[in-house]
């Protein structure tokens, strides 16, 4: 009930703001906003994946290709680390599958927020491949401020810009591997934790979001020591996410603002 009137208002806004430029204007705006910062941060974290690929003796083209084809830092990290230790294929597949499960709630929560009534299935399938941490966080945060019709083009521009820059950075990391001193390498690795948490905090809009953030941070190491078989992250998501959702219901029940 809530979506319909705003959709009508947003499309009329769309026709007068975007006019002849169509979605292209928002595509470039997304690409530009990514290139102003976020894309370089993903790029820096993927540069460390490139360095790892170098250290385990994989070819440079494979390292560079892994970024557009896999587009998931942890998955790429697991893959290259496993190639170094000559792990069994089934063990690698289990680990990458568990790391990939997080995309399910990400795609499910982001798409209804960005698509319009006119967005086709293929466009959504293609867009789903771009959804990883950075694109999810930034589009969740910036999307609602854009006209509905502009959100998909914006996400395409933002996502493709991230992929392009990060691919170049993966390649750069491959060639820089081994020549970075310890503190610089550590500083590179520390970019992801700061970026993930700060992005989540900037996108948090209600008590539930804050609860999910803090509970997830604290529960993950606990789950790691109590839940085995690589299922600890999934358990963290279910328990911390479930508790955070209960916070929302509790506040609703007491008539508080969400």
């Amino acid at each position, binding site marked *: 009930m809530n979506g319909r009137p705003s959709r009508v208002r947003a499309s009329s806004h769309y026709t007068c703001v975007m006019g002849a430029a169509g979605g292209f204007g928002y595509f470039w705006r997304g690409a530009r906003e990514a290139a102003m910062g976020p894309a370089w941060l993903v790029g820096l974290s993927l540069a460390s994946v490139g360095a790892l690929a170098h250290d385990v003796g994989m070819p440079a083209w494979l390292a560079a290709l892994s970024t557009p084809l896999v587009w*998931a830092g942890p998955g790429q990290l697991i893959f290259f680390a496993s190639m170094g230790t000559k792990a069994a294929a089934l063990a690698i597949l289990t680990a990458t599958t568990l790391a990939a499960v997080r995309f399910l709630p990400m795609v499910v929560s982001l798409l209804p927020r960005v698509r319009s009534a006119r967005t086709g299935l293929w466009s959504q399938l293609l867009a789903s491949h771009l959804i990883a941490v950075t694109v999810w966080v930034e589009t969740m945060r910036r999307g609602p401020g854009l006209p509905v019709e502009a959100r998909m083009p914006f996400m395409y521009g933002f996502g493709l810009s991230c992929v392009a820059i990060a691919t170049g950075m993966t390649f750069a990391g491959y060639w820089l591997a081994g020549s970075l001193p310890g503190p610089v390498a550590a500083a590179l690795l*520390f970019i992801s*934790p700061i970026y993930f948490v700060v992005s989540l905090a900037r996108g948090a809009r209600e008590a539930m979001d804050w609860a999910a953030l803090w509970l997830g941070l604290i529960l993950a190491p606990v789950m790691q020591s109590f839940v085995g078989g690589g299922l600890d992250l999934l358990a*963290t*998501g279910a328990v911390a996410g479930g508790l955070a*959702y209960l916070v929302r219901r509790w506040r609703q029940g007491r008539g508080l603002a969400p």
Partner: protein
Amino acid sequence: METLRLVFADPAAAPLAAMLVLAAAPNVVFRVMGVFLSRGLNEGSEALAFVRAMASALLAGVVGKLLAAPPGALAQLSFPTRIGVFALAVGAFFLFRRSLAAAFIVGEAALIAAFWL
């Protein structure tokens, strides 16, 4: 079929095929499942709020794990030091009116300083 057998016998023998099957395919599966599960869901629905909480907690969990058991060069710092550096970055974020840049500058400076101390 032959390639697939090769992938499962020795991933390093067919690196591109191994990457497609072992690293890219699982992501495609869950992203596509997400697209189909999201159909019919509306922004603002309760189900979506629950899913959002789970996604946020999962992502925060990734960070929690990175801090507790970090890879590579980060492991050279002790656990209290890592938590301290991270707390400084988060503190700077709130102190400077939710600034991403402040969190980075303070966090990275504290990290480099921790190596020298």
